[in-house]
């Protein structure tokens, strides 16, 4: 079941948990044996602490939800001093999701994380739609992504995964720019920009009016984007967006993903991630795939 994503990032199986939906892993240890996962990607972290957006930060939508959490976190230094010591010995890969609003923030943050022994990779979040300068500015143009990825690449020596925004016209182009600038892999998709209105009150449901859509409803869009990106780039693609069970996960692999992440589904079934890992294994056995990695791109089209 192992997956080699390159530059030292080896996963026990293709299943990781998506940033912002699994806390720091600790919140889920009553439900999931973390040793059953390929990795966990912890909450989006910025160089400086952020209070995030005001409440309300979520709205349920048909088969999904909108959120505008706005990267609430206590900053990279706090992560290093107070959180890292608690989670570094988890029996799985712990990846940090790094966000920023300026180029310097990303570079300084990446430098600080580079020395953490037990963090084998960062997922560079250049796609948060929920803060004015959540890095999405970097993630929606090829020039922006080339700049941030190449600068971070200079200071970060481990696996650099770049998380792409779906809020673009041509995601393959953005992925190619990330690859050319030194990304070891790309993960997609982050949330789709959306909005919800309370008609009775004639008010937006979210404090900052717009938010990011996630959950089962985004799966077809995510699947299509993973397929497009996987055809375009040579580096591994990590697929996510609406994965709720092992069949969904297999579909992403068939579309070209080398690994997958589970996000919003953790809220509905806190034990889903381990179940997906088991289910993918069962699928491989049932269909005669010796290695789960053989599923990648095995779409019969």
């Amino acid at each position, binding site marked *: 079941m192992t997956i080699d994503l390159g530059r030292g990032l080896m996963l026990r199986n293709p299943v990781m948990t998506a940033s912002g939906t699994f806390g720091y892993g600790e919140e889920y240890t009553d439900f999931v044996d973390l040793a059953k996962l390929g990795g966990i990607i912890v909450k989006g972290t910025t160089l400086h602490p952020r*209070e995030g957006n005001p409440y*309300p930060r*979520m709205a349920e939508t048909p088969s999904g939800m909108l959120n505008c959490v706005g990267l609430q976190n206590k900053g990279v230094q706090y992560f290093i001093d107070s959180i890292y010591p608690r989670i570094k010995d988890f029996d799985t890969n712990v990846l940090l999701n790094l966000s920023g609003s300026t180029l310097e923030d990303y570079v300084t943050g990446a430098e600080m994380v580079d020395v953490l022994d037990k963090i084998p990779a960062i997922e560079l979040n250049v796609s948060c739609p929920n803060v004015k300068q959540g890095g999405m500015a970097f993630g929606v143009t090829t020039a922006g992504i080339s700049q941030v990825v190449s600068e971070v690449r200079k200071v970060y020596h481990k696996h650099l995964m770049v998380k792409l925004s779906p809020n673009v016209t041509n995601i393959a182009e953005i992925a190619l720019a990330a690859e050319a600038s030194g990304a070891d892999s790309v993960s997609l998709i982050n949330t789709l920009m959306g909005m919800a209105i309370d008609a009775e009150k004639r008010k937006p449901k979210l404090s900052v009016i717009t938010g990011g859509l996630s959950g089962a409803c985004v799966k077809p869009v995510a699947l299509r984007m993973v397929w497009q990106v996987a055809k375009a780039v040579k580096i591994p693609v990590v697929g996510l967006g609406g994965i709720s069970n092992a069949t969904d996960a297999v579909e992403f692999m068939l579309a070209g993903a080398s690994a997958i992440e589970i996000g919003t589904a953790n809220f509905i079934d806190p034990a889903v991630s381990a179940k997906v890992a088991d289910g993918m294994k069962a699928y491989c056995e049932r269909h005669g795939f010796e290695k789960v990695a053989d599923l990648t791109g095995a779409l019969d089209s």
Partner: protein
Amino acid sequence: MKQITDFILVEKNDYGRSVLLRLRSDRALPEIQPGQFVQVRVDGSPSTYLRRPISIHDVDFQHNEIALLVQQVGEGTKHLAVAETGDVINMVLPLGNGFSIPEKGEKCLLVGGGIGIAPLFYFAKVLVENDIRPTLLLGGKTKSDIIRLADYQQLGDTFVTTEDGSLGEKGFVTMHSLWQKEVFDKIYVCGPKPMMKAVAKLAAEKNVWCEVSLENLMACGLGACLCCVEDTVDGHMCVCKEGPVFNTRRLKW
């Protein structure tokens, strides 16, 4: 330790807008503090995607039973209300931090508004087990909102207000004559936010310690998504994990 468990609905009582659900599990129940809640998965309701947070209304450890008092406000709660005995209902529990247990000899007032009376039942029961007889003040819009009054009366002196005066004193809980007559060491409140704020204000004026149970919109219920935050003196805190019970001195509302 938290668990995800299939419960079987063993008994259902209708109270108009609300239903009382008694649910039994095959597994031993975890330790449960009064004021903690469950996240219920609402099966078969296509428009209900996320779990719904519901307070633990009562616990029977001997029979592995939990009771929930659910008020129908939208699709999810309406769906729960039409569940039939024998149906399986999946819950994650126990979540959050409960009410703080007072010292022996302290005089406690438990104030509930609307469906906010739900967690006060188990809380009052635990207090009685700890040799503390609480005073209860239950408020509603009308008589039918005051559910299980006789059962609450078993647990402590119980007073009622209704906005239309159909039961107890007319008006809001903060207007009850009890406030003129009695002095309390601790006040615990659960109900709509404006009502909790009003009681908190009254408590602050009297310089009485006060805890409230908040009902912010939730997604994960586990402290992972940071959707349910409340503004406190220590910054944004997750109601699902740091709460739902907060001392009012910590809240910036």
